[in-house]
C-alpha cells in the first residue's frame, strides 16, 4: 500500500534462533486439511489452510463459529481425536513435518516447544490439583529438574504472569481463583518451558472486558520479553487489532484473506472481512445501521463449489462459480476473491 506501512510481513525479522528457517518462520502450515468422518457424511472442517508464523510476531486467526479456526490449531498440536479426524498437509516446525513424526516425539514438543491455552479458564485446569502442582507438572515433564526446583520455577512463572502473592496462590486449587487468575495460571503453564510457539484459542472470550485488557496486555508483554511467537485465535476483530501483527481471516474452512493488521484494517480485500468489519459498532464513530451479512454459513458436509462466500456476497459475479485462488492484492496482502482490489468496486455502489 503506501509508504507509511510497516515492512511487508514476509521480510525476515529475526536472524538468530533455533527453530526458524531463514525467513524467520517458526511455524509453517501448508495446505492443511481436516475431515471428520461421521456415520454417513464427512465434514470438511479445514480445507487447504496455509499460513506462516514468524518469530516474535503474533498472528491473529479470525473467523466465526464453524470456520475451522479452532480445529486448525488443535491439528497443529495433533490434539484432534485420531479415530475420527483425518489430517493431511504439512505442518513445518523446526525443520520437521509435525504430521509425520512419531507420537512420542510429538509429546516432547507439546507444552515444551509449542504450547496452547484455551477459551475456558474455568474448566481447563484440573480441579483436583493445586495450581502450583499443575504448572510444576509441565516443568517436570520437559526439564530434568527436582520436584523442589520445579515448584520454585512454577512459583516464578506465576509471578511472571503477575499473580499476586504467588507462593500462597500456588498452593491453592483452581476453584479458589477467579477466571482471570485461572487464565494467568494457564499462561504460566504454557510458557513454563519457554516455547517457540504459543497457540491461544479465544483466551479472553470468557473473561470480562477489563480482565481481557489485562490478559492481552500480559500476552503482549510476554511476547516481547520471551520472543515467543503467538497464534491468537479469536472471533473478535477488536482483539486482533489490539494484539496482533498479522491476520488470517477464515471462512467455511478456508483462509479467505491474509495480511498485516495495518493492511486488513485499513482496507480489507475480501467481502467477508468487509462485512465483518462493518458489522461491528464503532465507539468513535456514529453508525446508523450495522452491516448484517445475509444468509448463513454453508453446510460443510457439502461445501458449495466455487467461492464459498458467494451466496452471501453483494459483489458476486458469474466468475464466482469458479473457485478463486489466493490472489495477491498488495505485497503481503492476499485475498481469495475474484473481484479484488475491492477499492475499484466502490464506484459501483
Amino acid at each position, binding site marked *: 500500500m503506501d509508504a507509511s506501512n510497516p515492512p511487508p510481513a514476509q521480510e525476515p525479522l529475526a536472524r538468530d534462533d533455533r527453530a526458524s528457517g531463514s525467513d524467520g518462520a517458526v511455524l509453517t502450515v501448508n495446505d492443511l486439511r481436516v475431515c471428520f468422518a461421521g456415520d454417513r457424511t464427512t465434514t470438511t472442517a479445514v480445507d487447504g489452510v496455509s499460513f506462516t508464523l514468524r518469530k516474535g510476531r503474533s498472528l491473529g486467526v479470525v473467523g466465526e463459529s464453524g470456520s475451522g479456526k479452532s480445529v486448525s490449531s488443535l491439528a497443529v498440536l495433533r490434539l484432534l481425536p485420531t479415530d475420527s479426524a483425518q489430517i493431511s498437509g504439512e505442518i513445518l516446525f523446526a525443520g520437521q513435518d509435525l504430521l509425520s513424526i512419531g507420537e512420542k516425539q510429538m509429546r516432547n514438543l507439546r507444552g515444551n516447544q509449542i504450547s496452547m491455552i484455551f477459551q475456558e479458564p474455568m474448566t481447563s485446569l484440573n480441579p483436583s490439583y493445586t495450581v502450583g502442582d499443575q504448572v510444576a507438572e509441565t516443568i517436570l515433564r520437559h526439564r530434568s529438574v527436582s520436584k523442589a526446583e520445579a515448584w520454585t520455577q512454577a512459583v516464578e512463572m506465576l509471578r511472571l504472569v503477575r499473580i499476586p502473592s504467588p507462593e500462597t496462590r500456588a498452593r491453592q486449587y483452581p476453584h479458589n481463583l477467579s477466571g482471570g487468575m485461572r487464565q494467568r495460571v494457564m499462561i504460566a503453564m504454557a510458557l513454563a518451558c519457554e516455547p517457540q510457539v504459543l497457540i491461544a484459542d479465544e483466551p479472553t472470550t470468557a473473561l470480562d472486558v477489563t480482565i481481557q*485488557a489485562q490478559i492481552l496486555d500480559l500476552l503482549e508483554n510476554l511476547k516481547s520479553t520471551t520472543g515467543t511467537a503467538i497464534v491468537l485465535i479469536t472471533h473478535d476483530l477488536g482483539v486482533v487489532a489490539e494484539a496482533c501483527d498479522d491476520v488470517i481471516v477464515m471462512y467455511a474452512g478456508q483462509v479467505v484473506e491474509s495480511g498485516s493488521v495495518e493492511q486488513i*484494517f485499513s482496507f480489507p480485500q475480501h467481502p467477508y472481512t468487509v462485512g465483518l468489519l462493518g458489522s*461491528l459498532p464503532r*465507539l468513535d464513530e456514529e453508525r446508523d445501521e*450495522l452491516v448484517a451479512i*445475509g444468509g*448463513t454459513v454453508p453446510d460443510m458436509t457439502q461445501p458449495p463449489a466455487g467461492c464459498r462466500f458467494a451466496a452471501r456476497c453483494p459483489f*458476486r459475479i458469474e466468475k464466482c462459480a469458479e473457485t478463486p485462488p489466493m490472489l495477491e492484492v498488495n505485497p503481503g496482502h492476499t485475498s481469495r476473491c475474484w473481484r479484488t482490489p475491492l477499492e475499484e468496486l466502490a464506484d459501483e455502489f
Partner: protein
Amino acid sequence: MSFETTSSQPPLLVASDVSKHFTLRRTIFGRPLTKVRAVDDISFSLQPGETLAIVGESGCGKSTLGRVLMRLIEPSAGAVTLDGVELTALSNRDMLAQRSKIQLVFQDPYASLNPRMTIGQTVGEPLMLHNVVPKAQRAERVKELLKMVGLRPEHASRYPHEFSGGQRQRVVIARALASEPKILVCDEAVSALDVSIQAQVLNLLKSLQKKLGLAYIFISHDLSVVKHIADRVAVMYLGKVVELGETRKIFSTPRHPYTRALLSAIPAAHLGHGRDTAAHALAGDLPSPIDPPSGCRLHTRCPHARPECKAVDMSLDVEADGHANACAFWKELPQTDDLLGKGRATDPRLAKLFAAFSNPLPEGEQAPC
C-alpha cells in the same frame, strides 16, 4: 425520584430504591448471616419507546435487576411501577395480567425454546395465554409475527433444531412480541451470536422499536453494542449503579472511573486510535460480592482512589442534563477527551462497500436471516 426524566410524558417504568439481597447462610435460628447485595438501592425510569442499557461485568447484578423489574424475582425492598401500576404491590394473579406488558429475551436461544414445540406453537402460546387475539385469528397472527422478525410464515410448522442461532433468537423475539408488550427486557440477547448475526438481530431490534414504539431494557456486558442501540446507559458495579446518563454523554464524557475503565478496555477494531488504556485500567480482580468493600465499592481497584474513598457513600451526583454518577470526587478527576481515541476514519470507499451489504442479495437468494 426519576431525576433524569427530560420528556414531558409520564415514564413507562419506574424503579425506586429497588434492592435484592440473597441470603447465603443463616444461623440455626434462621437469621441471615451472609448476604449478597446483588441489587442495592437502584432507582431509574424508562420512557415509552426508549432503550435503557444496563451494563457491567459478570456479577454486577444486572441480570438480577432485569428479573426484579419483571418481578420474576421478588425485590427485597423498593417498588417497581409499570404504566402507573405498582407491580411490587400486586397479588400473583394480578401480576399475571401485567406480565403481557413486559417480556424477556434471554441470552441463549438454544435453551429458551422447547425442542418439542413447533415455532408456530411457541409463538402462539402467549397469544392463548394472554388471550390477545380470538382463537380463529391466532394462526394468522403467528404468521404476521414471524414476518415481523424476518422469518417466513411457512417456518411456523418447523422445529427449533431446524434453525440457526440467529433465527432462533428471532423466534424468541417473535414469542416475546406476541403478547404485545410495551417493554422488552433483553438479557444479553445478542451475546451468544456470531458478530455478523449479532448485527442482524441488533438491526431487527432497532427497526421493531421504530415500528412498534417498544421500550427496551437492554442488559449487556458489551459496550460497543450498547452504544449502538441505547438511548441511555446505566453502568453497574457490585450491585450499585455507578453512572447513568444519555449514551452520547456516557461515551463522550464518562464521569465515573469505572465507566472510564470499561470504555478504555474495549479493544477497538480500527487503527490508530492511540488511546492510553493503561491510565484508566483497573487493578486486580472483582472483589467478592458477599463482602463488598466499604465506602465506594470501586476503591480497591480504582486508579484514582484516595483514602477518603473508603468512607464515602455511593449516592448519585446528578448534573443539570441528568447525567448522574456515584464518584464523590469526579470533578477532580483528570479530563478524558481521548478516552475512546479518534481512530483513523473509515475509508469512504469502504463505507460504500458496507452499504452494499444492505442491498437485497442479487437474484433474491436467501431471506436475510
